[in-house]
């Protein structure tokens, strides 16, 4: 290595193992080689908006998943004696039209929205990555067929497709995860396929072939790891998109069935009372949707910068 203080990173993020410190000449200052993760992390924490987004996201997760441990409400049994109460003692954010405590309901609804958002994004990312990597690597007829499938499904408006599916199957959290995941994998598939097309002609991939390595080995060990940056960034946007889509369905009354709920469903219910000024049924879920979606986008921005090689300090 010509410069022991700088890890040599190729343009694709491939990085040779750092030399052991013991091998460095005695008496000279030795810099510890930084991993790609460390470099990326340094870039990420310099992005203040990304940090804000991450903090908001963590707070949202804590609010939704830890909050119910300390703020106990009955989100199953309807109580028609306490409907539409304004914020006050006992109900800091009031109650809804069926008597559910609104603050507790925001926690329960947030659990559904976040769970569906993240889980659907994971499914979409995994399916899309594998699909795109295979299509891009093998090329030819395989690529043509696989990408035409993607094009065909992309040609159907996603909301229409979702509406069609949720009218056939009864909406629940697992169903919504599955449905959203299986309709959101198309974008990552196209992105990964594009990256794969450039990666498959790289020397190290060709070297694998020359040495008799299998195609699957190339896909799994070289193609997919090298598109991981693109995949992670896209996954964050997938989360935001999934949260919005579940909000859309909830708003249209086709979300999760009561007593379960999500923020979109809560917003939909709230708008029925807009003329009676029950603001506590409208603002909180609406604001939470916006804040969390913005936060996820900011984190995505930060991650994109952090995996961008040119921004990493070497």
């Amino acid at each position, binding site marked *: 290595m010509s410069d022991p203080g700088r890890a040599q990173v190729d343009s694709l993020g491939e990085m040779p193992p750092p030399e052991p410190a013991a091998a460095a000449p005695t008496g000279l200052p030795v810099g510890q080689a930084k991993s790609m993760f460390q470099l990326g992390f340094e870039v990420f924490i310099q992005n203040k908006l990304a940090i804000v987004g991450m903090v908001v996201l963590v707070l949202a997760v804590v609010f939704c998943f830890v909050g119910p441990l300390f703020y106990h409400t009955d989100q199953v049994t309807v109580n028609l004696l306490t409907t539409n109460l304004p914020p006050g003692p006992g109900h800091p954010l009031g109650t809804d039209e069926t008597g559910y405590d609104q603050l507790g309901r925001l926690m329960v609804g947030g659990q559904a929205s976040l769970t569906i958002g993240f889980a659907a994004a994971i499914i979409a990312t995994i399916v899309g990555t594998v699909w795109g990597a295979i299509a891009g690597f093998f090329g030819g007829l395989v690529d043509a067929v696989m990408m035409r499938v993607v094009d065909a499904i992309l040609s159907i408006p996603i909301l229409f497709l979702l509406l069609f599916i949720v009218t056939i199957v009864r909406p629940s959290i697992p169903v919504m995860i599955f449905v959203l995941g299986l309709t959101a994998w198309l974008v990552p598939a196209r992105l990964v396929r594009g990256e794969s097309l450039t990666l498959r002609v790289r020397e190290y991939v060709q070297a694998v072939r020359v040495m008799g390595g299998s195609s699957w080995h190339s896909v799994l060990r070289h193609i997919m790891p090298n598109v991981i940056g693109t995949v992670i960034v896209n996954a964050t946007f997938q989360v935001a998109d999934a949260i919005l889509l579940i909000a859309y369905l909830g708003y249209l009354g086709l979300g999760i069935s*009561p007593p379960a709920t999500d923020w979109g469903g809560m917003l939909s219910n709230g708008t029925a009372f807009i003329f009676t000024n029950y603001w506590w049924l409208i603002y909180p879920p609406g604001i939470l949707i916006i804040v969390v979606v913005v936060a996820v986008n900011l984190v995505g921005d930060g991650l994109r910068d952090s995996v961008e090689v040119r921004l990493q300090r070497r």
Partner: protein
Amino acid sequence: MKKLRTHGGIRKKTFRIFGSIAVVLLALTGCSSGNGSPTATTASGNAPGKSADTATFADPPNTVPNWIWPFSPLANFSVSNSSDLQYLLFRPMYWFGNNGKAEVSDSLSLAAEPVYSNGGKTVTIKLKDYKWSDGTSLTAQNVMFWYNMLKAEKKNYAAYTPGQFPDNIVSVSTPDPKTVVFTTDKAYSQQWFLYNQLSTITPMPDAWDMTAAGTKGDCATNESGCAAVYAYLVAQSKDLPTYATNPLWQVVDGPWKLSKFNADGNITFVPNPTYSGPVKASLKQFIEVPFTTDDAEFQVLRGGNTIDVGYLPTQDLAAAKSATTGPAEAGPNPLSANYQLAPWFLYGVNYFPINFNNPTVGPIFKQLYFRQALQSVVDQPGVLSSAAKNYGVQTTGPVPLYPDSPLISQTEKNNPYPFSIAAAKKYLTDNGWTVNAGGTSVCAKPGTAAGDCGPGIAAGAKLDFNLQYASGQQTITTAMQSLKSNAAQVGITLNITPAPFNTVTGTAIPCSGKTCTWQMGNWGGGWVYAPDYYPTGEVLWETGAGSNSGSYTNPAIDKLIIDTTTQSGTAVMRAYEDALAKDLPVIWQPNYTYSLTEVANGLQGATVQNPYSAINPEEWHY
């Protein structure tokens, strides 16, 4: 730090979406002037009555007319079809609802009240001098057309009950063009025969006696010729886009003619210049407009310059009115600047049917203890006071509890199955079920002995059901959520799904066999007693009746119903209603005020409303 925009498309899309949500939220909240506490809204905008010659009427949410021929199958036998379309064009022989009272209207009927003779077995009807819009006179042959059609296609008419009209007619004659004489198989209660038998007749014009365009049929004179006419008229009635242009439907005897018809519910009527009735329309147009939700309707109504007769969604009332007031008494009106509030309560009962013939869950529904358990988790007082803001009354049996009448029995007044989770649990545990509160109860003791689950119910059978309900009305949505929550406390899992009104009514129909798969269906409004104006319920509960949606059958009830048709007085009615209230052929639910009608200030004639749901816009004027 320079940022790369490698996924700018995605980011742009996401931010656009989020941005649109923000805009929507701002727009929504901008519509209301919140100050932190729920207050009544005040109307703004111009006063209605944009044109003194036109009245615009808001259809109930998600409820649009879709069947023009008065001979309706059950799937299309709805208030929206009869009251909001058919009655305006084609008048039934007897009109019910007289100046807001639940009685026959002589002035609006096409015939004089029937004369009974021969010990009550001969019924003579004299038609008045009415004309069809094609210039022909209303004659006895028009009545025979309906009668023959009913005889030939009785299975396809929703108000048909086996053994009753026309099965109970021994002979019929038309001694002159204005007289029809029916001879019945036995003497019937005269009130019942008028209110529930003759009331179903709608004379049909000769122009409808066709088997194809330009091909004359002979149903009016020959019952065997009715099948072909029926097929033709059904096909025409299914062709919604042609309603306003089809020459068949332009032949009317009512006060209105169709000018425009859109299948989405936008309908325009114009006066029938040859209408022979006592009050001719003074408006030049009567327009019906549809809404998918009551919120959507209220937004327009609140604007104040489009709808002349609309309705106020109960969720838009800031507070419930006094519980001591009747369902037809008005409380505070948030739109008083432009409208007069005139609550419209119909003479009917509200319920939702359960499908006794469902091959899977039918055996469970046939068990009285299960129906008792399910009825016991319906929190009628809670729904009425919260969601309905005290606009409505409980339903406890087949006779409406409002208005007060001698027909209401003490059993109904006392409610045999009041809301009680504990009682519901006991009904199940006493009959072989392991109740899993919050989960799903299972049958632990299959068998037919006392204390067992009952015939056809296997060990491990679960109380897990699908319930489709009409979307668009917040009151019904809240009531369904309440029911689901209460049922879950005794391990009855109700999978509730919203659907348009016409979808629910089209699904919850009598059926049998493996394809009879619907389980519970709630179109929200139950039944208004029309055209069976006397609440003896034969159309609804008698075995094989056309509107017996759940295929309920009980020979003992059948006999009691038949008794009400042949005997007058309250004793026989109370015997029937007590038995039915206890036997639960359906699940009773709150009977909401049909419409919190808002009538534009200055519009005359619209505040007195028909208790059987008919509208008379020919009597409206500014």
